[in-house]
């Protein structure tokens, strides 16, 4: 290319404040191959785009350099601009003079020099760029949704309503997620299961949704439009089709009442065969292989009681794990969150003192379907508490544990305070130790005021310690409103733990190639403008797996993610990124180094007529990482848009300039 145009963006003052744009423009204008060099206040605006388009036509440009923000922001925009002016979209190179220059180098001279160099490097590359063609790929009009909590449910329903087939994969025996464990929701005090169950039923009944409960995604490959997914269906040891969900087996299990019940946060006990909760979807029994006497020891009484009682003859101890494979065009990840295990904060006594519990445990105690049938009692001695004390921000907003705010803790505690008052009457004393009350959502502040008005004691401070004394628990807290140290005597301590990423989020991130932030939550492609996209095209995130949020935000994000995903599924074909590898057969010696380097089995050896072997790239499988190119000893393997000579041209410019 030797008719290159350089377009330098001021980005208002974002670039222009530290980079001398005029100097860059002058400098670029004198570079070999550059025929026009201009600047504009906002190159990404309509006027900026027109400036580029007009210049392309007027100066018969064959290559374009835009010096602006990161290519992650606007490469797409400028590719389109260039294309609209009749050029191939791939004869464009972005010089990132904002994120990696003007914003990080306050010295005007240094920033300007670096900007000039980056532009010079970009021009050198564009001189060697070649037009590329985007191949069309067919889209599989199906979606995978990972996680069957409220976010995954909402995304599945939205996608299925739009007419797409949805595979919903849930790890637990039932969908419902965390919301199913809640009693009431803030600020409306809706009964959680009353508003959740209908949605769960919709999932079950929708002809477009295929539910894989008690299953896990084990591998995903392919790319946007065509992902190949492998799911392992764990054995329930109960024939799915025969089981009617009557629960007879649950009642006769010899382990009944002996196994900690995870749905009830281990406050109650279940048997080895169980149905997690009455509204479970699918309503099928599951045998826990780690607890079942027959599965562990090969013997359960004279014969397994569940088998004896099951009229449907559904119990099947021979079941094995089953691998299911399918293809989808898009993936929505909605795997939710964990609560921090408060034992990490020794001073609060969790797991040392029985009457120190978490909000989720209290939620199960309040719930009429919970282990106590809705009786709120102290776990140590089953007596009604005369005083309950909430400790907010347990591990949250704490440099040494979780720096972030859990976003639901304040409102959860306020809601529970209300419910305690409702259940236990006026006599119960309620104390809330808080850092700040964050009641930011719609109608949250009003709810807060309602609680603050009714006989609830607020202490602004983080307790230093929970101690067990002869006559019960005490909490030391310094109230920063009155500047006084209080010792609160209380019966039940409720900790509000930090919201943390699920413990398997790292594994899942690797399976999906989705990045996680420093906090461990899945990372959105842009915190403001692409909150549901990930850096991996065709994979979207919703709900708490992306960061703490309440139910309404999770639902909103899930609908958003479904709609983003539907944008892709509604197209028959997509244009594939052409930046993939290719072989110059004349140079290829058939050594197969590339074959061994490729992680995607995208390179094959082919026999030519003369019986010599050459490598060939399977374009549909190549992801365009360029590992094979770097490994090729003869330079026969190259990557479009990142050919050796194209990169070396930039290296020569940047390396040579001292």
């Amino acid at each position, binding site marked *: 290319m030797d008719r290159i145009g350089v377009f330098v963006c001021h980005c208002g003052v974002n670039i222009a404040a530290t980079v001398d744009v005029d100097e860059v423009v002058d400098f670029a204008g004198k570079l070999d191959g550059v025929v026009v060099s201009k600047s504009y206040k906002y190159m990404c605006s309509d006027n900026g785009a027109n400036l580029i388009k007009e210049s392309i036509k007027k100066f018969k440009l064959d290559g374009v350099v835009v010096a602006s923000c*990161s*290519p*992650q922001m606007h490469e797409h925009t400028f590719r389109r601009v260039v294309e609209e002016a009749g050029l191939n979209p791939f004869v464009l190179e972005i010089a*990132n003079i*904002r*994120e*990696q*220059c003007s*914003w*990080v*180098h*306050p*010295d005007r001279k*240094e*920033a300007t*020099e*670096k900007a000039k*160099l*980056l532009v010079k*490097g970009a021009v050198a590359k564009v001189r060697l760029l070649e037009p590329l063609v985007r191949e069309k790929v067919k889209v599989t009009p199906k979606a995978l949704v990972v996680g069957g909590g409220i976010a995954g449910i909402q995304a599945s329903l939205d996608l299925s309503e739009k007419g797409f087939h949805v595979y919903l994969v849930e790890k637990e025996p039932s969908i419902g997620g965390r919301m199913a464990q809640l009693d009431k929701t803030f600020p409306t005090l809706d009964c959680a299961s009353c508003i959740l169950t209908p949605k769960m039923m919709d999932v079950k009944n929708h002809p477009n949704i295929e539910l894989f409960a008690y299953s896990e995604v084990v591998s995903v490959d392919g790319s946007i439009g065509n992902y190949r997914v492998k799911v392992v269906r764990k054995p329930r040891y109960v024939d799915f089709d025969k089981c009617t969900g009557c629960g007879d087996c649950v009642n006769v299990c010899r382990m009944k009442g002996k196994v900690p019940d995870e749905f009830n946060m281990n406050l109650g006990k279940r048997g080895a065969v169980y149905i997690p909760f009455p509204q479970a979807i699918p309503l099928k029994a599951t045998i826990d292989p780690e607890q079942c006497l027959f599965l562990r020891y090969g013997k359960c009484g004279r014969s397994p009681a569940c088998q004896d009682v099951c009229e449907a003859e559904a119990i099947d101890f021979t079941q094995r794990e089953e691998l299911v494979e399918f293809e989808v065009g898009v993936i929505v990840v909605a795997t939710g969150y964990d609560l921090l295990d408060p034992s990490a904060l020794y001073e609060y006594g969790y797991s040392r003192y029985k009457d120190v519990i978490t909000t989720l445990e209290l939620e199960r105690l309040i719930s009429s379907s919970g282990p106590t049938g809705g009786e709120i009692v102290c776990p140590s001695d089953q007596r009604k508490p005369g005083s309950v004390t909430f400790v907010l921000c347990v591990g949250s907003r704490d440099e040494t544990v979780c720096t972030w705010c859990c976003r639901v803790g304040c409102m959860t505690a306020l809601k529970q305070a209300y419910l305690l008052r409702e259940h236990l009457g006026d006599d119960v004393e309620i104390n809330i130790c808080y850092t700040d009350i964050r009641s930011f959502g719609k109608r949250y502040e009003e709810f807060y005021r309602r609680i603050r008005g009714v006989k609830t004691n607020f202490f602004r401070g983080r307790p230093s310690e929970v101690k067990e004394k002869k006559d019960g628990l005490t909490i030391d807290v310094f109230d920063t409103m009155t500047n006084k140290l209080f010792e609160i005597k209380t019966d039940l301590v409720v900790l509000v733990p930090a919201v943390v990423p699920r413990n398997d989020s*790292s594994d899942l*991130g*690797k399976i999906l*190639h989705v*990045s*996680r*932030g*420093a906090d461990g939550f899945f*990372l959105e492609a842009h915190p403001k403008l692409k909150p549901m996209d990930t*850096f*991996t095209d065709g994979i979207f995130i919703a709900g708490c797996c992306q960061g703490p949020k309440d139910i309404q935000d999770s639902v909103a994000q899930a609908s958003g993610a479904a709609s983003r995903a539907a944008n892709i599924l509604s197209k028959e074909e997509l244009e594939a990124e052409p*930046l993939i590898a290719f072989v110059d057969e004349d140079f290829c010696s058939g050594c197969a180094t590339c074959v061994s*380097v490729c*992680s*995607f089995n995208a390179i094959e050896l082919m026999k030519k007529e003369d019986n010599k072997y050459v490598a060939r790239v399977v374009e549909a499988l190549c*992801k*365009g*990482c*360029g*590992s094979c*190119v*770097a*490994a090729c000893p003869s330079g026969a393997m190259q*990557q479009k848009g*990142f050919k*050796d000579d194209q*990169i*070396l041209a*930039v*290296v*020569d410019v*940047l*390396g*040579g*300039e*001292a």
Partner: protein
Amino acid sequence: MSDFEPNIVAFLCNWCAYAGADLAGTSRLIYPANVKPIRVMCSGRVDPVFVLEALKKGADGVLIAGCHPGDCHYQSGNYKANRRVILLKELLQQLNINPRRVRFEYVSASEGQKFANVVKEFVEEIKEIGPNPLRGEQ
């Protein structure tokens, strides 16, 4: 030697290190302008020849940054890059070039601060080592 300003070429993978460097920008973390980024899709694309070429042209240091282990967008490009750098360092030793001029780092998309720190440290280190003897030989 106090006025020696090293020139450093940095190969950054698109998905992690480049995004991390962008985040350093969005967070306005100041770091030395000595580093000149080149975007590649994956650190696995970095041919040792690129590094040698940069040094031959006179660059005082070369940084290669990719995703953390297990996080590579293409599964294992970062391992390949890391291994190549280890071998390359041996070669540099034989060529009488200080292997510390070449550095491999893992920087995730959320580690803007780490990127800035790595650059700061590396610039200091190269200042200590001194200019590339091949500088200006072209």
